């Protein structure tokens, strides 16, 4: 059977194509994550581009032991969104440093980005048990406080924390299983 490398392997590899594979693996989930927060499709694209540019710059800082790569990307994207509010613009430092060419978007492409950013996160996080998917989506993606989720789900914080923890672990396992 062909060896499918894990995320850490792709990031550490000296082969530029491997970063492309890493990108392919996670772009869907990242667009869904951004689509839940950013309305304008051009901004979704900007954030996605800068997130991956930062991931490329910092690829040696990724530690698989600390969580799945998708969570790492979400954290980078979240930082960028918060930063953009303060600076009133989407950061582009990493793209500039890496010399990425700006990509001009026409209306059709904007439509396409909009359609993809509306993708249900359940699809991106498919494979998790429903209760884990809900907990991961609300806590990790939706950033809701544990007590709020627990109140909604009528269960203890401990139950929610366990679901998030297991969901993240399963996400990582699922990604590792691919390799």
């Amino acid at each position, binding site marked *: 059977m062909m060896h499918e490398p894990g995320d850490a392997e792709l990031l550490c590899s000296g082969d530029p194509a491997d970063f492309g594979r890493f*990108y392919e693996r996670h772009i869907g989930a990242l667009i869904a994550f951004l689509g839940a927060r950013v309305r304008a499709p051009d901004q979704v694209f900007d954030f996605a581009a800068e997130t991956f540019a930062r991931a490329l710059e910092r690829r040696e800082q990724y530690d698989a032991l600390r*969580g799945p790569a998708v969570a790492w990307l979400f954290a980078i994207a979240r930082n960028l969104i918060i930063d953009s509010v303060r600076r009133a613009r989407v950061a582009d430092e990493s793209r500039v440093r890496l010399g990425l060419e700006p990509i001009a978007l026409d209306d059709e492409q904007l439509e396409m980005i909009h359609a993809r950013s509306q993708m249900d996160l359940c699809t991106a996080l498919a494979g998790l048990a429903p209760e884990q998917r809900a907990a991961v989506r609300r806590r990790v993606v939706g950033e809701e406080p544990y007590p709020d989720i627990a109140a909604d*789900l009528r269960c203890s914080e401990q139950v929610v924390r366990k679901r998030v923890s297991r969901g993240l672990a399963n996400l990582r396992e699922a990604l590792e299983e691919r390799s």
Partner: protein
Amino acid sequence: MNDPFDLLRDELVRAAARSAAPATRRPWWVRRPSRPLVVFALCLFLTGSALAARGLLVSGAPVQLPAGTPLAPRSALGIPRAGGAALLPLRAADPAGGPPWGARFVATTRGYGCLQIGRVLRGQVGVIGRDGAFSDDGRFHALPVDYLYGPFPCAPLDANGHAFAGVVIKGAPASGLIEEDDCRAPGRPTPRLSSEPQRPPCPPGDERLLMAGMAGPEAVSVTYADERGGLHTVPTSGPDGAYLIVVADSSFGIEAGEYSPLQGAGGGTIRTIRYSTGYVCRLTGVRAVGEDVCPPIGEHPVSEPHVSAASLAARVSARLREENLPLRYRTRRELMIVVSFRARVAVRNGSSQYTISATAPGRGPRCHYATFGPVDRDVQRGQIVHESIATNGCHGTFRIAVGYRAGGGTDGVPTQLQPDGLPVGRTAITVR
């Protein structure tokens, strides 16, 4: 038309080809600081450590339970049983000095055994006013015995009064106050869209990896790996084979502050647990996230009366009602589904429970997934039980199932995610 995401991928691959592999860059907080800074920090550290070592840390107000936290003897974990709490001789040095970490065993009115973790000073378990706790007042704040709010390992007691449980806490602040109300881990931003108040970042280097638990009466020692992979062995303490391991830790990124309640001893970087019988439990769990745990060696299960599905079966009904749903920072008016059924079997402690699961319809952000939760309280035989489920703005038909789980035994708080118990009944309700 070119897919813009394909164009972006190609750009990134080209950039990857241009950029040589970057030199490993340490985070700024671990880079070599200037000499005056080192001297200043050393002075501060030595002064603080010396004061703490001499027990001169001034005491402040005890830690308060969050407002609204129920302290009911017959629900959730219950409250500490009279005479059921004891400070264990267990101690773990903090990597930055100061009062050591320690633990207190607490037996509760609902038949749970919990390990309350914190910093120990003058014979008390507590927290230090730092990392945002108590406005960084530097004082020692005792944890009341009934403070079971933290992510402490808890499990139903077995027939001999032993509990088997563990916890792994990633990015715990050195203060010892392991909640969400303190500082946030470095690198973990306060969410912009959340109703959470802004919190300051923890000082870098104040994060700890905590592994604690009760491995059982036969457990003798626990071996774990430190950040560099070096192995260390610590003895267990007390009749429950309690252990507590504190390791310096850098940020866990998005997982900082997360914790995993475990259904046994182990997890994290724990590699082996040795027992007096000669048995060695070897764990291969994934570092930091691992939930690989050892079996409950020395457990004597509580005998549970036989319960059949026929003896449980009851009519389940559901109706809609608007309620104020109290969240942490606000109250939300919410359309709730009130599920009702008659309990034909009593629940007398935490080792059994009724469960309610519901499948939410619709396509909203909180719809189309299953909700599952326990009726986390004692129930008398024949009592009509009412539980509410939030509709979360979902429309369509909710399918609801009530079940019953017993003999949770000593494998941790019965928080199993699957409604794997015996069926009580089902119903459905449509929200338009």
